[in-house]
């Protein structure tokens, strides 16, 4: 489980769309299992990679069951996903009648229903309140870890990244500035410099946490 953090405009979303294969890099190449990603057909790529976009503007008010089935490929896989993500309660409801938290859960289930080997997610919990955000991240991490998948998730909340990731990547101005375990990343002054913001380091119940404070950057 890898968290991708960085200030606005650092290139997080660009990187993740390149990795998802929806955009092709001008330089360099993206490889999946040693093969260039653009050599995969769209269907092949979809079997290995799942992508959860930041803004999902849904054109159609489909039922939850229909949405998950589109990601799953078979109705059995869809039902399994419903169980994994606790969607049974609103399985036959239309998505636009759900709350933001429920909707995000359905879209996550859609992405993971096909049991891909890699999940790429761009702020999947954006616009959710603190509790819903954590709930969604719990569900996401549990599934990614349980199936031994690789997960790369863009997160704007640094403390959420420190809490849920096994590895934190810091991106600034299109460059990788830090690649470390959460505890190491939390202590690095590189975070303050990249965000242009001073952070106080604290440990809350054994968890490293960053609190933005006034003052000059060290």
């Amino acid at each position, binding site marked *: 489980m890898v968290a991708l953090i960085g200030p606005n405009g650092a290139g997080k979303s660009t990187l993740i*769309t390149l990795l*998802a*294969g*929806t955009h092709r890099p001008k330089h360099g190449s993206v490889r999946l299992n040693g093969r260039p990603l653009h050599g995969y*057909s*769209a*269907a092949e*790529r*979809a*079997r290995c*990679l*799942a*992508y959860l*976009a930041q803004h*999902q*503007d*849904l*054109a*159609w*008010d*489909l*039922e939850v069951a*229909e949405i998950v089935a*589109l*990601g799953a490929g078979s109705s059995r896989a869809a039902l399994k996903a419903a169980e994994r993500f606790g969607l049974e309660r609103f399985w036959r409801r*239309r998505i636009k009648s759900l709350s933001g938290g429920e909707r995000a859960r359905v879209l996550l289930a*859609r992405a993971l229903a096909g049991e891909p080997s890699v999940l790429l997610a761009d702020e999947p919990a954006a616009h959710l309140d603190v509790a819903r955000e954590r709930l969604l991240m719990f569900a996401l991490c549990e599934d990614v870890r349980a199936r031994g998948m690789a997960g790369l998730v863009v997160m704007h909340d640094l403390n959420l990244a420190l809490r849920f990731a096994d590895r934190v990547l810091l991106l600034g101005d299109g460059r990788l500035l830090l690649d470390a375990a959460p505890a190491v990343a939390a202590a690095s002054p590189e975070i303050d410099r990249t965000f242009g913001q001073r952070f106080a380091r604290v440990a809350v119940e054994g968890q490293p946490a960053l609190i933005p404070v006034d003052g000059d950057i060290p």
Partner: protein
Amino acid sequence: MSARSLACAAGLALLGVAAGVMIGAQPISPFRLVRILTDPGEPMAALFFAWRLPRVFGAFLVGACLSIAGVLFQGAFRNPLAEPYLLGSAAGGALGATFAILAPVPALSAVGLPLLAFLGAWGATLLVLGICRMARIAEAGGMLLVGIAVAALLGSIRSMATLMLSDESVSLRAVLSWTLGGLQTPTGGTLLAFALLTALCLLLALRIARGLDILGFGEETAATMGLDVGRFLGIALTLGALATGLTVAWGGVLGFVGLVVPHLVRWWVGARHAPLLLHASLLGGGLVALLDGLSRSLLPPSEIPLGLITALLGAPFFLLLLIGRAR
């Protein structure tokens, strides 16, 4: 989708067709209809089978095709307000049809009319899509404005061509009836060809229905779900243009059916495209069969152009939708 809702849609379609058959300049009572259908000696039977029934079936197919085109365009543009008339596709089809009618070669209009109508509809659709891409327009309102501008442009080209090319009042009338929307009474052969092409459109549309569902997540997400978006859009819009071309060739320019019917059906059976296509084609067919009956019977002995009736009923519906979206 349930078999029950599909049976219900088929029943409603049958009602529309029955109503279309019974009303007209000479109304036919249900009893008389049964007699005509069972007794070949009935005095009106010959007229009925030669004129009224083919016309009503033609109307049914036009309505079915319009609804299929509406569903396809709405799915491809990810826009519930897209439809052949508002997007300018029908105007493109009408331009093609006009050239076919006005061409000095009479033989051209039999095969050339549907073909040119299809090419016109296709070209207009691609033009709208291209302009939207170039101007980075993705939202419903902007896309409709592009469609309206393209429709206006093609409409004026068509009017100019009509004025310059038609030498007798006959062809002018023929072109005008196309513009306002009016059904021709098809002969057995053309009706069969039309039915087969409509069935082909529906089958092909059903084959790409799942792709339309996936496209609803947005082009980027759809691409990561295994859809080759560029190629898929090309196929969906070509098919939509084919359906539009068919309706224009046989029914002229009919607005709003392709908008109203998919909307109503979406409320009823949900937004998944496969059931939507099946139900919408049945209900659209029934609706246009009924409206065509009204166009023949409201002001006898003359006919009200069908396009006027569909606009009269469809435009207020469209406005209500716009108000509903703003809320």
